[in-house]
């Protein structure tokens, strides 16, 4: 049984769905960040798999870009998280609803 590109795609889809479910269902901001990382990396997986299948370098380039952006996003996100935690002693996002219209 050979591992075709479809397997990678299915695997990435499963990972992505898990990440999305995590973002939607968990209330802890830290776990939500981790879920987002999961989603991003599942996308990276599809890029690299598709790039390898089609013999294109662009797949890897896109993956590198995503990693850079993810790193930056995590830096800012964690900084906010730390600041919120210092103030509230809690990382529960449902309590942070002051911007309700």
């Amino acid at each position, binding site marked *: 049984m050979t591992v075709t590109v479809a397997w990678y795609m299915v695997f990435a889809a499963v990972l992505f769905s898990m990440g*999305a479910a995590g*973002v*939607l269902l968990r*209330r802890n901001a830290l776990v939500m960040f981790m879920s987002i990382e999961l989603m991003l990396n599942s996308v990276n997986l599809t890029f690299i798999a598709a790039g390898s299948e089609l013999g294109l370098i662009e797949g890897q380039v896109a993956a590198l870009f995503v990693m850079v952006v993810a790193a930056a996003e995590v830096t800012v996100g964690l900084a906010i998280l730390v600041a919120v935690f210092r103030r509230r002693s809690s990382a529960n996002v449902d309590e942070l609803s002051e911007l309700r*219209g």
Partner: protein
Amino acid sequence: MIDYLWLLIALPLLGAATLILFGKRIGEPASGWLASTLVLIPFVIAAVLTVPFLNEGEPETVFLFAWIPMVGANASLLWDPLSALMTLIVTGVGSLIHIYSVGYMHGDERYPLFFGYMNLFIASMLTLVLADNFGLMFVGWELVGLSSYLLISFWFTKPSAAAAGKKAFIVNRIGDWGFLVALMLIFAAFGTLDFGVVFGEAHGLLSVGMATAISLLLFVGATGKSAQIPLYIWLPDAMEGPTPVSALIHAATMVTAGVYMIARSAALFELAPVTLAIVATVGALTALLAATIAIGQRDIKRVLAYSTISQLGYMIMAVGLTAFTAGIFHLMTHAFFKALLFLGAGSVIHAMSNEQDMWKMGGLRKYMKITFVTMVIGWLAIGGLFPLSGFWSKDEILGSAFAKGGFFFILWFIGIVTALLTAFYMTRLIILTFFGEQRWDEGAHPHESPPTMTIPLIILAVLSAVAGLFNTPVRLGLEHFLEPSFEAVHQVHPPDGITLWLLALASLVVVIIGIGIAYMRYGRGELPTEEGGYWAAALDGYGVDAFYGAVIVAPGKTITTWLAKVFDPKVIDGAVNGLGYATRSFGSTMRVLQTGWVRSYAAGIVGGALGVVLWLLWQGGAF
């Protein structure tokens, strides 16, 4: 020398700017003399430049700078016999009135400003007269309206003067509307506003309908400026201004703008016989109507105001008859004798400490000899007594009407009746003012005016007496002079030979009858009481003001009040407020979506992304 033509406009304009900005520092009487000089110099320049026309000189155009070349409207001046004559009248009579004002306005708080406005007026009028295209002419036309507004309401602390200024301006705007629309039609027809092109090509290019439309609209403009039916109502009220203003604007220059404009556009009017008939009829009717009103006036200046309207009626009738030279001739003689009469009236008012009611004058001839003698000359000139100027110019108009025949016999007859009335009311004015008992109030000390006022009177009296000789049937001097300006148009002339002399005799007899009736009525002791009935109606101007007030002003006020009190708050403000209300209610509905929960936003994003994916799949035919 023709290169200095621009100075004609520039010098009075410079005077206006200087006096309006720095007048207070120049003071009295220096500012008056400065203003007079800046009108006198243009007169001298104009006189020198006119000399070539006496020996067959060619008309010239002086291009100053491009203004709106696309529509043929440039700052470019036309110097031909017609504009030369008008320039000489404006600057000549104008400078005399300026000099007169030096004395008359003595002691006024805003003395320098008055002369600033007067100079502005002269500059505006010269722009109108010298323009070589309709665009620049319109600039002058509007500036004349502006300066007349400033001068009529010069004593604006008097409510009546402020109202009169507004009235003059607004009524003139109605005429200006006609003029402006006419300019648009001219541009539509010719693609340019340049006189040379328009008048040169009118004959071949213009259909009768278009010519009629253009000339009728131009005539609407003329009825405004030249105070004809139905727009004459501003002129009597304009007597609220200082008397020199009445003399300058409402006798000698501004009101002649309409006559000049029609004469200038002779080539257009000639193509529209219907318009010409209307113009002549309106002129004749105005002459008659104003004369019958003038009979009943008690205010010395209002008599002259209505007399001006009446005389303008003659001029308009003349140009309507295509007797353009006759119209311009009467314009010239009228400028002299009417300026004289107004300035004389001003001298009387000055002497009587601002009393204008003729019923409170009388017997003044002993106290102001120069004014009396000059006024008598003005009276005989306007009355049309041989050989004074009014006789020649009025008879040329009446003769032209007679020569044209047919329907125009009626106009000739109206003209003759008007001549009778003119002689009557002018005699009434002279007798009530200068003859009979002294009826003035206690405390009035009539005295002769200073030389700055009497010398212009004397000069104008001489001109009023002899100006008629410029164009007698024996020697058609003016006709010959103006020939280059009217060579392209076909003019009507008075009949020749015995008919002419009979007509002259008829009008002379009529004038003597008019004077006679007035003498019988006012010259023999007891004055008749002129109250009630006809006299009240005439004094009131037949209630035309009230009529316009009821028919035009009152509905206008109702509409604007409705607009201000109902339409604006309900509809305009309602629309604006409604927009704000709609935005707010939309916002308060949509704010429910803003829950503040991060996870609900995330759900929205995921749901949206899912929706996009499904849509793409569906588009791709996946299911």
